[in-house]
């Protein structure tokens, strides 16, 4: 019997007590001695140049220390390359305070540093800056004919595969056809914690940089390159991140500002952005998509066309995989996919939860619903008839794919068979009731990652990796992995992250952390296990003298023989007997490419939704959601369920609420605050049921985990849109679905 099996258990978060008591420290909460405050001044114009900065009055205010702008920033790195972070797209990255040119509205143009936050804020408000403006372009609608195909500048971007079969001819020959456009506007991540950096200036000019980020190492590399700092000079620390959703994958400009000011003033500096300034950088891009589908008489897909055009900045070509999913989610031999960008005078878009898939699958899955109706088929039956057993983009089998089970288990739990397919056919009192469903697919990835473990003589295990915790449960899951592999109680394990002094790990994104860092922790524990066995064999009268590593197991705080568990040594005693204070090991884990390259690696989900719409008022409630997810092994059903619950809220938000509205006259977002950029509140959320479909997969990684942070969001916006059609007979193809579209 083992009491130290933790993987797969619904355990509470190990960082829970710190988070509920306020003890967890986020980037702008390290109150180091002698701290001064920087406040960012943002450009009110979208394009042009700064003609004058009059800082004299501001500098004369007692307590104001400096005004940084392009006029006085010292010579920094010359090359664009130095400003490129790990996940930068192709092009020329934005350089804060670099020159007089204004490239987008709310561009940071100056940093005012003062003794107090209040004074810095006031001084920033009275800093006189003159601009000369030139005409800007911010409307994607005017760029329909000007799309271009981007290069492969960004990590993870896969250009759409070339057409297969005869997509044009087969579309024309199809028995049923649909050809529609699908649109969503710009969306901003808006994590609850605003971007902030505390740069602690230490003796000798070294820095401890507490940064809000999804990757401490990415932040460190960025500032090292720009400011010419050594690894020792600039340690980046990020113990807790108050939400990321992709916004923290790239270093944001407050990091640059805080480091600049700290180095120049030789003081510790904090720079926090405002909620308004949270709309001044990356976002999910405004995207225009067309989907054309044709079916044969038997309901099989005859042809599929999917084209997307989205915005990017003038200076970088942001890319995401929008249309590729359409070539692999359903069986179809005649497929044409297209993907283009158009340049606008805005900041570069950025990965936002399930980037590309959230966009592309909204269009595809609404189109599939439209096609099902056109072909006279139940939307679920239509999907089952076109189920793909093979990834036709790659022409490879799936390493595992339990989407069919997601459909069946989800539909049963939801009660899909009670659905009357006719639109406007179901009612409850004065409410129109609609049932809708949709599918999701996301990559199961693993990246190179490292971890270090150290077992002390008192039996405590410290585990370190420079990964991040954005709320996904990394602290908890890594603690489970280490405790299980070394057979220790959870309380004996201290997993530490978010520090550039720890072994390297990738940015916390792509739903790959459990797979990547989890495997590294497992490997490090096994390396430590081998050392412990050797040490145990040196103990006097050791019962493990002749044992090989595969003969032993770590269980209940003991190292013992698998076949004769009575032959055991207490793990703590091994360290004590060794005479050392601790035993350490480290390891790096890489994806097994030889094993993986024969397969397509993906997680899937199926979402079923009920909406109720007041026919007269147009008010809409998502009353029930069932989200069935097949994402390999579920490390912790409690935290995984929370990930999917949150994903459903995100999908609902995308469907019904989120849109950053641009006033094209000024080239400026006008709802750049939490009161006008709507996200769901507690009262908007009703019954959500999360199902995990069992799925074993020893190809994706040794833990069999596919990642759960993004897949759960997919399908939700489309399922809601499809339910709205079922309830009302109105087919809406532009998100968000607000009351005006329902009346």
């Amino acid at each position, binding site marked *: 019997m083992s009491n130290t099996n933790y993987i797969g258990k619904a355990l*509470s*978060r190990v960082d*829970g*007590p710190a*988070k*509920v*008591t*306020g*003890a*967890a*420290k*986020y980037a*702008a*909460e390290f*109150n180091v001695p002698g701290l001064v405050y920087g406040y960012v*001044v943002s*450009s009110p114009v979208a394009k*042009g140049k700064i003609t004058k900065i*009059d800082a004299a*009055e501001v500098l004369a*205010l007692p307590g104001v220390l400096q005004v940084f702008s392009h006029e006085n920033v010292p010579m920094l790195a010359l090359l664009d390359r130095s400003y490129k972070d790990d996940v930068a797209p192709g092009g020329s990255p934005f350089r804060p305070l670099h020159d007089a040119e204004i490239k987008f509205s709310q561009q940071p143009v100056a940093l005012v540093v003062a003794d*107090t936050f*209040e*004074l810095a804020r*006031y001084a920033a408000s*009275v800093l*006189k*800056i*003159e*601009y*000369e*403006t030139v005409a800007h372009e911010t409307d994607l609608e005017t760029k329909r004919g000007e799309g271009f195909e981007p290069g492969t500048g960004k990590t993870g971007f896969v250009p759409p595969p070339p057409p297969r079969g005869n997509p044009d001819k087969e579309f024309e020959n199809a028995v049923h056809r649909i050809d529609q456009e699908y649109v969503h506007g710009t969306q901003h991540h808006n*994590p*609850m*914690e*605003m971007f902030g950096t505390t740069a602690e200036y230490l003796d000798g000019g070294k820095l401890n940089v507490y940064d809000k980020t999804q990757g401490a190492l990415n932040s460190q590399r960025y500032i090292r390159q720009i400011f010419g700092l050594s690894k020792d000079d600039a340690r980046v620390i990020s113990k*807790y991140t*108050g*939400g*990321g*959703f992709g916004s923290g994958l790239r270093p944001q400009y407050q990091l640059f500002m805080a480091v600049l000011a700290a180095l120049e003033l030789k003081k510790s500096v904090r720079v926090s952005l*405002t*909620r308004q300034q949270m709309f001044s950088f990356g976002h999910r891009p405004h995207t225009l998509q067309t989907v054309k589908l044709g079916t044969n008489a038997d309901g099989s897909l005859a042809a599929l066309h999917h084209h997307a055009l989205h915005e990017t900045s003038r200076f970088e070509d942001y890319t995401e995989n929008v249309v590729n999913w359409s070539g692999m989610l359903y069986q179809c031999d005649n497929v044409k996919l297209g993907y283009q960008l158009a340049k606008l005078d805005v900041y570069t878009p950025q990965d936002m939860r399930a980037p590309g898939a959230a966009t592309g699958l909204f269009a595809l899955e609404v189109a599939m619903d439209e096609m099902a109706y056109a072909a006279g088929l139940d939307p679920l039956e239509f999907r089952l008839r076109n189920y793909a057993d093979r990834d036709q983009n790659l022409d490879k089998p799936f390493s595992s794919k339990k989407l069919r089970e997601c459909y069946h288990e989800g539909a049963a739990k939801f009660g899909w068979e009670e659905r009357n397919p006719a639109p406007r056919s179901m009612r409850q009192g004065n409410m129109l009731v609609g049932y809708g469903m949709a599918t999701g697919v996301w990559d199961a990835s693993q990246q190179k990652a490292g971890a270090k473990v150290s077992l002390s003589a008192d039996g405590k295990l410290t585990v370190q990796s420079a990964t991040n915790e954005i*709320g996904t449960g990394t602290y908890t899951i890594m603690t489970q992995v280490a405790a299980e592999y070394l057979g220790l109680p959870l309380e004996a394990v201290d997993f530490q992250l978010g520090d550039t002094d720890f072994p390297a790990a990738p940015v916390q994104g792509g739903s790959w952390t459990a797979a990547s860092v989890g495997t590294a922790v497992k490997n490090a524990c096994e390396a430590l296990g081998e050392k412990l066995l050797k040490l145990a064999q040196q103990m006097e009268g050791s019962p493990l003298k002749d044992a090989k590593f595969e003969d032993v197991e770590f269980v209940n705080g003991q190292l013992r023989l698998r076949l004769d568990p009575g032959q055991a040594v207490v793990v703590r005693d091994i360290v004590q007997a060794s005479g050392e204070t601790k035993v350490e090991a480290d390891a790096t884990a890489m994806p097994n490419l030889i094993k993986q390259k024969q397969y397509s690696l993906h997680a899937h989900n199926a979402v079923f939704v009920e909406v109720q719409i007041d026919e007269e008022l147009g008010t809409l409630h998502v009353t029930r959601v069932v989200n069935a997810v097949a994402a390999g092994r579920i490390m912790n059903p409690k935290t995984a*369920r*929370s990930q999917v*619950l*949150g994903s459903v*809220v*995100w999908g609902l*938000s995308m469907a019904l609420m989120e849109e950053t509205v641009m006033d094209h006259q000024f080239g400026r977002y006008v709802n750049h*605050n*939490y*009161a006008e950029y709507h*996200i*769901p*509140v*507690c*009262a908007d*959320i009703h019954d959500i049921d999360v199902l995990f479909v069992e799925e074993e997969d020893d190809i994706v990684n040794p833990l069999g985990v596919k990642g759960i942070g993004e897949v759960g969001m997919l399908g939700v916006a489309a399922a809601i849109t499809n339910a709205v059609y079922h309830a009302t007979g109105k087919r809406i193809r532009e998100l968000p679905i607000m009351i005006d579209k329902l009346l």
Partner: protein
Amino acid sequence: MPENPTHTSGAAITAPLPPVSPVTLRINGQERQLHIAPWTTLLDALREYLDLTGTKKGCDHGQCGACTVLVDGKRINACLTLAVMQEGRDITTIEGMGTEEKLHPLQQAFIDHDAFQCGYCTPGQICSAQGLINEGKAKTAAEIKELMSGNLCRCGAYTNILAAVQEVVEMELKIKN
């Protein structure tokens, strides 16, 4: 050629800087002396002057509820009040609710129900829930959801927040009856 349009930003300086003066706040049962200018919000006083960083800043405009604290038992947004306005009142922050060793029932319920992910809105949610309990109005799930809707959670933990708050509300109702 007409010149390109120009634009000037930056307000005029119309008044001298406000003076710093002593302010005494009673926070979590302790008198705390600080020297601040009157334009300092209660939120910044807590976070930047008293190192009570459990109270979070999510918008600074009363739009998100992350800075919710209790003043004389009532929940308020600490970003929408100046510290000097709260002299003589009883201020309770998340640090005064419970400790890691001795958790408040709401804190325990939030852990048990996994009512948070990133944790940034959590102190505000918990203080808000205590305020809601003090108000004594919310009894049903629908009422709790409505009256907890001033606290945003971008991770979308609402299902579990409701479960956690409901558990403690029902516990309190049982004790009362």
